[in-house]
């Protein structure tokens, strides 16, 4: 499915994501890494304070689209792959990989790189490459 190039909207969205990361660090002293925050909502080892803060951040993420619907009258535009087996494998890999590798697009890609962390630069370069190769294989080598 083709999508149109939206540099300004994407830049604006990126600025909001950055503002959110700075706000969370300024008020709570925590990295806005979504895989970490989500995992901490469920992990048994999390103390109750961290669990509460993580759960509220996640709740904010969940409320964004419904509020978008209420204010604009329609859901945000999206197209999601519908093959259930593919999405199950994708979900399992994303959840496992992000938690096992200590971060995802937000924790490593935005917050980690912003702190100048070499670990995050290495992780981001690695998952970007793996994702580009995956799309190359599924769309051009076997999907055709």
């Amino acid at each position, binding site marked *: 499915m083709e999508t149109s190039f939206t540099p300004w909207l994407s830049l604006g969205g990126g600025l909001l*994501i950055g503002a959110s990361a700075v706000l969370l660090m*300024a008020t709570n*002293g925590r990295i806005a890494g979504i895989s970490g925050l989500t995992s901490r909502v469920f992990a048994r080892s999390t103390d109750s304070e961290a669990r509460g803060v993580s759960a509220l951040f996640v709740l*904010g993420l969940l409320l964004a689209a419904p509020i978008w619907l209420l204010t604009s009258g329609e859901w945000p535009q999206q197209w999601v792959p519908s093959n259930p087996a*593919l999405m199950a494998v994708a979900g399992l890999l994303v959840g496992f990989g992000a938690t096992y590798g200590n971060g995802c697009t937000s924790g490593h890609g935005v917050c980690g790189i912003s*702190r100048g962390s070499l*670990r995050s630069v290495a992780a981001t370069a690695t998952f970007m490459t*793996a994702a580009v190769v995956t799309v190359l294989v599924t769309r051009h080598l076997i999907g055709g």
Partner: protein
Amino acid sequence: MKQFFALLSGLIFGFGLILSGMANPAKVLNFLDVFGTWDPSLAFVMGGAIAVTAPGFAWLTRSRSRPFFDTEFRLPNRTDIDPRLLSGAVLFGIGWGLGGFCPGPALTALPIAATGTLVFFPFMLAGMWLARHTPDLSLPFRKGATQ
């Protein structure tokens, strides 16, 4: 107060994901499809986010000893690039390339309740649970290497 700001941060993050196109897997997959229907928009998301976060974090940690409503800045201090980090990133990248979702957008898109999202989400949580219960498989190798 910190609870209120945690919720607000999540909400702003979610709006950022929606506005930028990150919450739309079609856009993510086209961003990754460098050799096909490439849509470079999402490079602007990461660029814009880092342009705010990098100076923001630097200013916070330089000008303040602690956050406004908490006791300490919780910043990771590890610097080693270990097999666990890189193998996790490879698996994450493959999953991202298959489904077009990473954790933030999956949460944001969940209320829209597309079939693919409703399948992806519980499996993502299961993957996180599995990772929390998987010991660091690279440790025995490293121990062997130092002996």
